[in-house]
């Protein structure tokens, strides 16, 4: 299975702190993406990193990809209460579909 697996399952941090979550996957990919899902809502695309990239930034988000270890990390810096959500990694292997992990639930305490 291509599916990513996130770690940790849940994370609780204080506002202003950084949140780091990891994703591991099993086989070769074209790209890896991170999505956010607020409770009961749809998935919002955050960032995409291609297999030939090692690091990417978007605002307060930093994503790394290590294809030799088949892993990725998502760092959210200076977290805000509005960052409270579930975060999913999803891998794409050139087969026109995303394989999602189980997600990390992040709670940012005010």
């Amino acid at each position, binding site marked *: 299975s291509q599916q990513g697996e996130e770690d940790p399952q849940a994370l609780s941090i204080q506002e202003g702190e950084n949140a780091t979550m990891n994703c591991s996957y099993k086989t070769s990919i074209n790209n890896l993406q991170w999505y956010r899902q607020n409770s009961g*809502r749809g998935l919002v695309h955050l960032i995409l990193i291609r297999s030939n990239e090692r690091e990417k930034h978007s605002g307060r988000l930093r994503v790394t990809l290590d294809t030799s270890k088949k892993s990725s990390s998502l760092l959210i810096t200076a977290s805000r209460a509005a960052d409270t959500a579930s975060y999913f990694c999803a891998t794409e292997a050139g087969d026109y579909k995303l394989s999602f992990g189980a997600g990390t639930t992040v709670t940012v305490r005010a």
Partner: protein
Amino acid sequence: EPEVTQTPSHQVTQMGQEVILRCVPISNHLYFYWYRQILGQKVEFLVSFYNNEISEKSEIFDDQFSVERPDGSNFTLKIRSTKLEDSAMYFCASEWGSSTGELFFGEGSRLTVL
């Protein structure tokens, strides 16, 4: 900002009934998808659709499921005879081109089968 819209937001149906979930993808997008998320579980791929035909489908997408793009704007998912285990949130997504990688998801349609 353009968005993917889905209707209904919530549908309750009796087991064995037919259900149609509707989606309006972003207008210049070419690739369309259905995913589902059973409560508390992973988001699962159901089907991808391009150029008026299915590109890829998962094992979940059996003969009870079908998709259609009837009029160039709507993209529908039909479940012919619903089962209890079809209860889930169904997400439609669209993508401009297969190389872009970024999918735009709708807010989902929650299906409850009684």
